């Protein structure tokens, strides 16, 4: 049996250390290279990273502390019935992990993240802090105008700090680079759909998450190299079921949980872990005279299914069913963070849609610092057996 190339293992290890570096050393080193470089931190789920890239800023995904930092101060900021993500992030801020950051964007996913943007202002973190409110009206003249003004505000925030005026060419170039990035990420998912044993779900997770904290040019190089290796045949297929994970788009599951699901006999062939990097479902036109408008239009018309988007007319339940069919999945694992209102409130509708289509599903909840996976492994294991033996 042919084994994975040593270089691929090396690449995954590199991505692993980048993805979970809570000091963001790579980003801070990148900033030091030039005085007009900026670091703009953003929380899950989505921000258009192209505008930051074009403004000589590095968009840095702050995806939580996982199980790698003990929360002490963060617990004083949030009640016990609030999810774990914001308490970890405020802990990082108070521990000076984010001191070199110039600005922070807080996408509108829930009240807790909205409150976190206020807390960052109160503790004076960053030179600008913006609550990034997605438009929920998809009319170009209403939601589009609102969204464009929001992007222009952030562009102005950055301009005031480094004096960079974003040119049409620069924004078009950034759009093209991120188009390539999304295509490469999608290629990895497509290869895994047919050959999930070539790269584990945790490896994919590390590779994609690393892209949140490094520049897109470097991430594209890594992705291209990974694809070259996984296009070759190696490893041995296991008799596992194929599942889609739904509900982990904001607070991220611990790596042990992803590993446990796979060990229990489930190939994760699609997920919403790093949804922001796969948000726009097609290429954005990177050749026009008004690239900012292209970003606006793509958000209004090409956004992925998400709890952060008002979805009447194109319900995410139907889109989940479509994804299950497209990926030829055997079932769905609803895996949301405890107290994650957006994911947990959506779940009944999504489950109903799965039931109507005869799609098997199970559900459980986690914290980003969950350390015990026995029960989850048991659930996933019996789910896998029930599909393998009785469907």
């Amino acid at each position, binding site marked *: 049996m042919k084994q994975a190339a040593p270089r691929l293992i090396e690449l995954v290890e590199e991505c692993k250390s980048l993805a979970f570096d809570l000091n963001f050393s790579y980003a801070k080193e990148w900033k030091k290279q030039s005085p007009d470089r900026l670091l703009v931190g953003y929380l899950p789920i989505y921000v258009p990273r192209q505008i930051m890239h074009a403004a000589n800023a590095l968009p840095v995904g702050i995806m939580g502390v996982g199980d790698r930092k003990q929360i002490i101060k963060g617990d004083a900021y949030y009640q016990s019935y609030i999810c774990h993500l914001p308490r970890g992030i405020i802990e990082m801020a108070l521990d000076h992990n984010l001191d070199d950051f110039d600005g922070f964007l807080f996408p509108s996913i829930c009240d807790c993240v909205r409150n976190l943007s206020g807390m960052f202002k109160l503790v004076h973190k960053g030179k600008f802090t913006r609550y990034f409110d997605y438009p929920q009206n998809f009319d170009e003249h209403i939601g589009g105008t609102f969204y464009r003004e929001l992007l222009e505000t952030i562009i102005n925030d950055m301009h005031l700090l480094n004096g960079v005026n974003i040119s049409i060419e620069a924004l078009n170039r950034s759009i093209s680079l991120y188009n390539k990035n999304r295509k490469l990420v999608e290629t990895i998912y497509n290869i895994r759909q047919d050959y999930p044993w070539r790269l584990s779900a945790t490896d994919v997770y590390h590779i994609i998450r690393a892209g949140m904290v490094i520049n897109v040019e470097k991430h594209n190089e890594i992705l291209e190299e990974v694809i070259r290796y996984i296009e070759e045949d190696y490893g041995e297929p*296991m*008799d596992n079921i194929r599942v889609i994970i739904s509900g982990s788009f904001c607070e991220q599951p611990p790596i042990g949980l992803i590993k446990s699901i796979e060990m229990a006999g489930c190939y994760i062939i699609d997920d919403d872990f790093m949804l922001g990097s796969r948000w726009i479902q097609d290429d954005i036109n990177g050749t026009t005279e008004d690239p900012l408008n292209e970003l606006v239009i793509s958000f209004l018309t090409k956004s992925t299914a998400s709890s952060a988007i008002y979805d009447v007319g194109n319900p995410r339940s139907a889109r989940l069913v479509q994804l299950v069919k497209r990926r030829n999945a055997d079932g769905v694992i609803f895996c949301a963070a405890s107290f994650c209102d957006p994911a947990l409130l959506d779940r009944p509708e999504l489950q109903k849609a799965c039931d109507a289509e005869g799609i098997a599903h199970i559900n459980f909840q986690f914290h980003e610092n969950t350390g015990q996976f026995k029960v989850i492994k048991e659930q996933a294991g019996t789910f896998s*057996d029930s599909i393998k*033996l009785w469907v």
Partner: protein
Amino acid sequence: MIYTMGIDIGSNFIKLVLMEYSENSKIVDKHTEKIRKRNPTQVADEMVQLMLDKHGLKYENIAYLASTGEGDLVKRKRGHFYGMTTHSRGAHFFYPEARTVVDLGALYVRTIRINQDARVEDYKMTGQCASGSGQFLENISRYLGLSIDEVGEISLQSGNPEVSSGICAVLAETDVINMVSRGIKTPDIIKGIHLSIASRIIKLLGSLKAESPIVLTGGMALNKGMIQAIEETLKEGSKNFIIKAHPDSIYAGAIGAALWGGYRHYKLLEKQAVAI
């Protein structure tokens, strides 16, 4: 006929079976190895290789090698089945009329209600406390200077069992130390431990709404003292269950894995044929 293999990685022992899978499947060979302080992955791999060599087979000749238990420690395999699924199938292989399975493992006891096809309908298991487990019994036997293999017979000699805590392994171990210092006879101590474990099992069976016959599987299933204690406790509660334990009950998980592996092999072939 095809060959299948099932390997059950427990916390103390690794169990391996080679089977001829057909409508009348049969065990070709079986082997158990205590892990001791060795690397379980390496032990498992060596066991498989030795079994293959012994029968002049290659890995490619095995249609499906299935793991169960801590299956991620097995590197060379085709699939994995969860312990509850495999023990149920193993018990059904021994006694097709089985409707309840009690898996007496090293770290927990699990009671499983199954249907006529060995499909799991419901289960109840002990929590993280160790006092209902085989490991606990092994620890106690070690304190008393006994081998785990002899505790069953010794328990049968008891005339006046001294029941210990059925709730907590730590308390039970303290109880045992006190019993020794009070001069309680060894058979009475052992029987008391068996009764204590049995009472926990009976509670699980009650909440499971178990049906007869009950088949015992796992490492403790052949412990005669344990079986007697379960039967006595059931009688005390006026419950008429038939208890069965097969001589190969320690292999139930591995047998179940091998049998489900065979089933999956043909199912996958069918799927491929449909796809073509």
